């Protein structure tokens, strides 16, 4: 068991300079992050790590696991990089979370489901 808050809440505060993700932050757990440039001198070490990790697409959850930082902290760091053009984000396609079913269930798009089913059957 590893407790980041036992480590020190101060450390997390320092990493983000006390910021928390805004309500309009665009990141989902499975948003795929892609680095658009190499790390530069003087960058915050977490930003350097993200740009290195995301040379190939990597989901936010994987970035969080790789940095061993909580998701909300990673969202703040990613927003910094997005704002400065360091990364691009491939958001999940819309489809899930629709509620056009008569029962009001949130149902994904049928084409998406078909691709998922085919992928699973190939496993």
């Amino acid at each position: 068991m590893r407790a980041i808050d036992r480590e020190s809440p101060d450390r997390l505060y320092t990493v983000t300079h006390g910021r928390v993700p805004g309500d309009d932050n665009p990141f989902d757990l499975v948003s795929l992050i892609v680095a658009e440039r190499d790390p530069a001198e003087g960058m915050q070490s977490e930003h350097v790590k993200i740009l290195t990790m995301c040379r190939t697409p990597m989901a936010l959850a994987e970035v969080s696991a790789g940095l061993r930082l909580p998701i909300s902290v990673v969202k703040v760091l990613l927003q910094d990089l997005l704002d400065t053009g360091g990364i691009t984000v491939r958001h999940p396609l819309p489809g899930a979370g629709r509620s056009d079913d008569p029962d009001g269930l949130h149902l994904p798009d049928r084409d998406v489901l078909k691709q998922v089913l085919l992928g699973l059957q190939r496993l």
Partner: protein
Amino acid sequence: MAYNDSDPQVPEADPAGQLPAPAGQPPAPLPGSAHNGLKIVIVGGFGVGKTTMVGSVSEISPLSTEEVMTQASVGVDDDSHVRGKSTTTVAFDFGRISLDSSNVLYLFGAPGQERFWFLWDQLFAGSLGAVVLIDTRRMKDSWYAIDRLEHHRMPFVVAVNRFDDGPQPSLSKVRKALAISDQIPVVECDARVRESSKQVLITLVSYLTRLASGRTG
């Protein structure tokens, strides 16, 4: 105080002979063409086998991530453990399946207990659906999760993880005990076995496809 809801992982012989990458090695990178991340959430109580199920079908060893909860969002029912602290943390595990060159499915193991509810919104937002993993020795652990899934209108299937030393009620008894409606699939599984976990996921996606096609029968 930190919670780690990761299930205890017992090394198991993998009957399918397909072991994920050894722990500690960086997971294989996704292809540059990957552009669509998808989510399925596996919900269940502590020790029910969520991480085992994730690990049995994932192409990477399950990874652990965590989210912090500020004191303001701590439930009033259970705040003794955070007295004097500003944050508390919950860890949860996930795995990955590359479905094709563009679609990547992530499986998240979600703790089902009420005090972890703060995590659920971001886990379930945009998820395809959920698997409720049941331990028949502790069925009441699942009541809250099922209630919340219904409340969130998140489609789900129920998978009964068979433990050798547990009671072996029939699936119809499980369905009745948990008041699960007839159209929702209830299946047995062995979360340690890749093929079995795979079939649970296929059951979920087939069910979602029927729902999306307007056929619930």
